[in-house]
């Protein structure tokens, strides 16, 4: 019977192509808008590194102003100072650890045709690559020796390798960056990280950087700060080093702790470190140090932007309006079918038969609308890409789960919209329309 109803539904669609297409369009627009915002929210709140998100912890130390917290009501600052970053790195109390910061500089390509250009640089420690499962095409990251020796080495992204070296294995070659020559030790594979959780202060939906180099080089090469800097007191001395060793926070500190015992041990270490620093005249606030795993850290930072949530609600309301519209169109369509319904009832169709027939008819419109809505969602997402940067690329290869959600939503909402018109169609009296034709 289902196939019969499906055939009748197709015939009915063809009979009123304009009316039917209007319904499909209404559903498609509602679904398209919803899927766009659902996808944005879904990706924003998805776990960027599911294998390890429970083992990677962001470190917060309360080194802030004794008279007021870094963030109300009593939260520590969301970055650490150079002093603390380097001290924690030296202590090596975690299984893996990397302090990091964003810097930048001018790249001067070897081949004469290309113009110099500005780039971001991620300053990090050697553990960075292993901690964040960074994939390599050629070579590898540097080792901890290179951190200590402040070796002039660099890891570059795949895109940068394509741009500078035409995609060849460039390990051992030289890049001129920020006025210095660096030796390439590794080239990454395509590396997408959404959200790019390791540094939310510079935008959780920014791209991963094109250049990575040992963080200690910041001091010797006087590399700039391209991230957020927050200070609660004036640097004691002028100049680059005066600022670097000030109480200003500008560095992210990540540690990898494999289990709860390691986490507790590290927390104890952080507290004793703070006590130590207090004895030296810093950390004037009571101990308020924190370890947040990846999802906790993203939640703390409201990585799912409020406007994305508002857009989600708006789009759901828009879907509702589209559905109300669809209800009106369905009523019009089904009232045009009163003659057919009346005849079918007269020759023996039960109310249930009529109900099922029209349920399939609305379901068909829902599915077509859903598919068209997916197309619109793709368009919408590439438009949203302007707002949230790289996000859009991820979305063109939409998750099968999301496709299923879209079609399910379309089916359910069209059937909901069809419920009243369908019920009404079963109320057509068997004989009422048969007198004359």
């Amino acid at each position, binding site marked *: 019977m289902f196939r019969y109803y499906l055939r009748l539904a197709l*015939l009915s669609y063809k009979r009123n192509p304009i009316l039917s297409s209007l319904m499909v369009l209404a559903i498609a627009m509602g679904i398209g808008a919803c899927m766009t915002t659902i996808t944005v929210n879904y990706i924003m709140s998805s776990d960027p590194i599911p294998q390890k998100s429970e083992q990677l912890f962001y470190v917060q130390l309360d080194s802030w102003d004794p008279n007021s917290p870094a963030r109300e009501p009593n939260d520590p600052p969301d970055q650490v100072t150079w002093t603390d970053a380097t001290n924690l790195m030296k202590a090596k109390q975690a299984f893996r650890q990397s302090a990091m910061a964003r810097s930048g500089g001018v790249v001067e390509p070897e081949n004469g045709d290309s113009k110099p250009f500005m780039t971001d640089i991620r300053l990090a420690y050697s553990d960075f690559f292993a901690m964040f499962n960074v994939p390599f095409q050629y070579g590898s990251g540097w080792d901890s020796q290179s951190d200590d020796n402040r070796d002039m080495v660099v890891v570059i992204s795949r895109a940068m390798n394509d741009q500078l070296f035409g995609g060849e294995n460039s390990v051992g070659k030289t890049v001129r960056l920020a006025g210095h020559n660096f030796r390439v030790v590794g080239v990454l594979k395509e590396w997408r990280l959404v959200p790019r959780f390791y540094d939310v202060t510079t935008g959780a939906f920014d791209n991963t950087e094109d250049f990575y180099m040992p963080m200690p080089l910041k001091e010797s090469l006087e590399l700039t700060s391209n991230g957020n800097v927050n200070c609660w007191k004036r640097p004691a001395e002028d100049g680059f080093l005066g600022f670097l060793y000030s109480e200003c926070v500008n560095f992210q500190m990540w540690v990898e702790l494999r289990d709860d015992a390691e986490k507790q041990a590290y927390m104890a270490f952080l507290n004793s470190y703070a006590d130590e620093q207090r004895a030296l005249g810093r950390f004037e606030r009571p101990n308020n140090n924190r370890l947040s795993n990846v999802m906790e850290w993203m939640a703390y930072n409201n990585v799912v932007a409020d406007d994305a949530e508002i857009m989600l609600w708006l789009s759901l309301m828009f879907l509702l309006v589209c559905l109300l519209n669809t209800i009106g169109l369905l009523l019009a369509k089904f009232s045009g079918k009163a003659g057919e319904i009346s005849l079918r009832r*007269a020759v023996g169709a039960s109310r249930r038969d009529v109900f099922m027939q029209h349920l399939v008819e609305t379901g068909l419109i829902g599915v077509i609308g859903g598919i068209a809505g997916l197309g619109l969602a793709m368009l919408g997402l590439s438009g949203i890409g302007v707002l949230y940067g790289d996000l859009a690329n991820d979305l063109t290869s939409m998750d099968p789960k999301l496709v299923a959600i879209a079609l399910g939503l379309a089916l359910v909402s069209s059937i909901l919209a069809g419920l009243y018109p369908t019920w009404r169609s079963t109320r057509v009296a*068997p004989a009422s329309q048969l007198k004359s034709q």
Partner: protein
Amino acid sequence: MLTMTNVKKIFRTDLVETHALKDFSLQVNEGEFVAVTGPSGSGKTTFLNIAGLLETFESGQYMLDGNDVSQLSDNARSKIRNQKIGFIFQGFNLLPDLNLFDNVDVPLRYRGWSASERKQRIEHALETVGLASRQKHLPSQLSGGQQQRVAIARALAGEPRFLLADEPTGNLDSKMAHSVMELLQDINQRGTTIVMVTHDPSLAAEAGRNIFVRDGQVSELHEVNTFADVVNG
């Protein structure tokens, strides 16, 4: 087969009440061919619709096959319409998007028969009305008389025991009308009980029994043989 006793049917609109049937009583026996005549608006279609369980009525009693059908659920009524009764409506009421085969298929679809059984019955029914070669045509591609014959095929395909025909020849010329009449007589001969409404006394004369309806009542139950009798009641 059919026994109506004092059936009353009132159509209510905001302004008027129409007493379409008043104390309508009639008995039709198994195997009969009854022709119903009467002036326009006298209640013939109303009677036929009630007989076919398409409409309910205010009071009185209607026994079909010995069962009181006035208390049946909508579902049960649908089932009886589907299995026992064949309809030929005053309009053809063919579905314009379906070809002849699918139009005849409509009642059979609700019967739970297999595809092959339906196909065999549809082809047989279309053959009976002489339209076997037109299965794939749409109703709009047929003449009025041919459409009427499709409507007859649709009513016959399920082999109902009870055939209700509301002016089955109303749209046909007299030659076609008589051939449809022959067809109905044929079916009647094979055991189907038929009640047919017609305006044409010469057709009515070919039926086994005539009844005359006036003002919502059966005014005459004897055989009517002449045109004058019909008109004068």
